């Protein structure tokens, strides 16, 4: 059982993510986020549970839907919001936008605009850990849609044959844009598919932050014990459209409200903590208040920050290192 301090941290982080996404969604609709964004509301427990079980030295690569991963990894919400606004103070200096949040100082190697690319890069991070003889693991996030990219399975095969310290987390919100996973996934069973590649895998409730945390901690231990790459299929749900502003007919209102009212990761965690008397209503209000304050500040910071200087547009395409006479 999670101890009280950590239990509250889980809650604070999930609420912070929800607040970030709610505010960012509104700002996107008001035209503040060039190119739009992918909202992760509903998927908070996956990010928070996984990141809580990782260590600073572990290396992570993410996807196009990565605000929740970024916040749970401890990234500054100011540099994230500024990046959404494409400001020069953003974590990618306004060059990446919402899909390319990054924090190298946290071994967080960035979001990705290409489906399946992040998880493959995580395999490379795992190889790097192996080659450089580090005592850590690499984590690659992917969506249910990425399960059908060829690069994913080429990477998994390599991780298995080389016994790499790789954890793959499927942030499985069950839809890829407007396509339900079962319609496009042969065998329909991600875990069975991973196992057939010689990889340990399990399916978990991605709405239960504690379950996600424990599964990740277990997987991490197994990897460090040399048991090879592991896969966690965390079943979750995305509350909003694929991109901000999209409403489709591909899923029913009943399905959406069922997930929101009965399986919400934040509400369920609160009920759990209240039942166990691990938190008070006052503490919950304070957590919510703090989240509002923090995200409010992030927006202020983003608003006040300058756009990138267009004179820098051609900087850093390469470093010039090869031009030097050695």
């Amino acid at each position, binding site marked *: 059982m999670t101890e009280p301090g950590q239990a509250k941290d889980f809650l604070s982080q999930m609420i912070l993510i929800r607040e970030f996404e709610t505010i960012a969604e509104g700002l996107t609709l008001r035209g503040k986020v*060039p190119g739009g964004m992918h909202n992760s509301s509903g998927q908070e427990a996956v990010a928070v549970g996984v990141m809580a079980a990782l260590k600073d030295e572990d290396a992570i690569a993410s996807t196009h839907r990565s605000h929740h991963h970024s916040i749970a990894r401890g990234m500054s919400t100011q540099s994230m919001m500024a990046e959404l606004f494409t400001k020069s103070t953003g974590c990618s200096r306004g060059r990446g936008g919402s899909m390319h949040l990054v924090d190298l100082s946290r071994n967080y190697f960035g979001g990705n605009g*290409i489906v399946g690319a992040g998880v493959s890069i995580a395999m490379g991070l795992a190889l790097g850990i192996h080659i450089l003889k580090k005592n850590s693991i690499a984590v690659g996030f992917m969506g249910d849609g990425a399960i059908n*990219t060829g690069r994913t399975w080429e990477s998994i095969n390599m991780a298995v044959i080389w016994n790499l310290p790789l954890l793959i987390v499927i942030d499985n919100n069950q839809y890829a844009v*407007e396509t339900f996973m079962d319609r496009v996934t042969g065998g329909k069973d991600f875990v069975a598919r991973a196992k057939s590649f010689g990889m340990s895998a399990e399916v978990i409730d991605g709405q239960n932050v504690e379950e996600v945390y424990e599964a990740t901690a277990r997987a991490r231990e197994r990897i460090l014990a040399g048991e090879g790459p592991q896969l966690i299929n965390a079943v979750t749900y995305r509350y909003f459209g694929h991109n901000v502003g999209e409403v489709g007919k591909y899923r029913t209102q009943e399905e959406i409200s069922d997930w929101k009212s009965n399986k919400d990761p934040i509400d369920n965690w609160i009920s759990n903590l209240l039942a166990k008397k691990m938190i008070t209503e006052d503490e919950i209000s304070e957590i919510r208040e703090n989240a509002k304050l923090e995200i409010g500040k992030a927006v202020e910071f983003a608003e006040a920050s300058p756009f990138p200087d267009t004179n820098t547009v051609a900087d850093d395409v390469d470093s010039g290192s090869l031009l030097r006479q050695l």
Partner: protein
Amino acid sequence: MTVVTYSEAWRSGLREEMNKDASIFVMGTDLQERGGHFSQVKGLAEEFGPERIRDTPISESAMVAAGVGSAMLGARPIIDLNFMDFAYGAMDEIINQAAKIRYMFGADLPLIIRATAGIALFGPQHNNSFESLFAAIPGLSVAVPYRPYDVKGLLKTSLRGSDPVIFIMHKKLTGAKGEIAGEDVFIPFGKARIAAEGSDVLIVTYGYSVEVASKAAELMKTEGVSVEVMDLRTVYPIDYEMVLQRAQDIGRVIVADEAPLFGSITGEIASTISEKLHSSLKAPVLRIGAKRVPIGANPQLVSASIPNVEDYQAAIRKVLTF
């Protein structure tokens, strides 16, 4: 004539041909419910059913490979990648397979790969100008239409042909309206058109840049300069007959697009004009293009990376100084 959007023009040509030829089918992600990311096949799944408007997993290399195989067997597949940026994941299938099948095996390969490209928002991994890369590959033909009319006409030709086509549509033109022709109008590859007539300076361009060039041409009238804008419509093959004829007639030429100048289509055209017409030109051939940078998420960085109307005007004034 009917006026429709650029996306609807694609749909119109596709519908007409699908009604005539049962071997035509389309595959890609999110085509059925969503109608594609650019509404390019909206409603066609209801009309033609899920066998002919097929939803795929996110498996670009398998999609193109499926296109190669089924085309060799006589079907007419259209692989819709939505964004051209996802073609990177299928480059072997496009360049090593589709492009070389006829040369190696003598087989027909009526395969169309459609995608939306060009520079807009969405950041570095969703903004690439690929046309020079594809045009450089022997075996591939590359359509880059500007008007709805040409979208439809070039698509219809592609669907009657027996060779692989890379069909590039520009993001910023998705909702742009224009006339389209009826059932029987087919536009051949390698035939340019004059978008605006002029006599002092010739701009050779294609795709969305036709719009920017035309604006510049309009603005230059106030300076008493008459600018001709040529819309290539396809960048492989290039209508060199028309390019060289007009270049010779006018004598001052600018070649323009929004791809990085280094290694671009504009370099290919400018060098050909210079080689063939050196002595009859009144000025060196100038080029307009993008900086050699990835496209940032920030809109100001985007604008700083690619040419705008003022850059066109400056180039026009400059070519007149010689």
